[in-house]
């Protein structure tokens, strides 16, 4: 089963298999604007994203991820670390600190 991940603001659409890590975006979007990834272990915060749609379709947010995001200034359910997410449904996301 494939799910559509839409990356804002350019509405870039990527289809990923169920349970795929969001880090796959890097390999599916070569040469295009993607999410920056760092440690891929939930420790650096580089890949903080805002989930515009489908917050429940990116897997469970662990307590340590939530507290780290809060520390980074991204309090609230809508923020995630992309490297900790698994695609479980259709979602729309954008880089948390994205500015035009």
């Amino acid at each position: 089963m494939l799910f559509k991940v839409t990356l804002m603001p350019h509405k870039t659409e990527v289809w990923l298999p169920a349970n795929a890590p969001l880090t796959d975006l890097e390999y599916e979007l070569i040469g295009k604007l993607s999410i920056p990834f760092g440690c891929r272990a939930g420790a650096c915060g580089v890949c903080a994203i805002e989930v515009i749609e489908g917050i429940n379709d990116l897997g469970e947010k662990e307590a340590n991820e939530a507290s780290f995001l809060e520390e980074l200034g991204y309090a609230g359910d809508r923020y995630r670390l992309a490297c900790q997410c698994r695609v479980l449904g259709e979602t729309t996301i954008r880089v948390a600190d994205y500015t035009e």
Partner: protein
Amino acid sequence: MFNRVKNVGFENRMPYLNALASEKLRFEVDTIIDGQIERWYETVPYAAHLEGKTVDSEYYRRHLIETAWRIRLLRVSESKALAEIAKRSPEAAQIWANYEREEMLHDELFIQDLVRAGVSREQFLATEPYLSTKLLTGYFSYLLDHEGPLGVVAYSYLVEYVNVKLEPKKIQALKESVGENNIGGQISHSHTDINDDHPGEVWAAIRFLLRNDDDIQSLKRYLAEHQSVLALYFKELYEDKIGSTLQKAA
């Protein structure tokens, strides 16, 4: 002057297979393993013994001993594999390191069940592993020295896939035959494999190690070879604990 540095893992970071192609190959590999499982039950003596209503206690104890030894011996080669994987793919190395972190001390779970089965820690330590267990360790060393880490990682995929598929049935049977209170370690081990999606984790590492079609063919060959080496163990276990007893009785 040219830069002599190599084996740093960043020569080609793009996986050979994209996400969809990786899923397709995984399905193909799973189908191959399903076929191997069928042949396993047909050809390996006592293959379904631990899934039966009664369990031979000597066979059961020795199986736990060898399982704990296998984890102890292979974690050394699997740690060496981490260095080889890091040379090829740091992404795969990160996944492998996390998997090894979760698996590293799982021998203790089996030793706890051994104690419950009447084998002390001292008795366990005084029991030398079977030759087949040592040979599996030797095969890992050969792979790392001469073929690369893919074969070592392929072993874990085979074991994790089979565990998730068959362990629940075996655990259920052991609850009846050995008693739920006596298999707490094995239940916890099974929980880790299933709840942490260990097959998925190991597959993610494999994906980053596959660099061409030859690697894919190698992966399929490794699955068959590992099954052959594991069958040696089950034959040795059967001969030691069941076959020899039957011979004496005859």
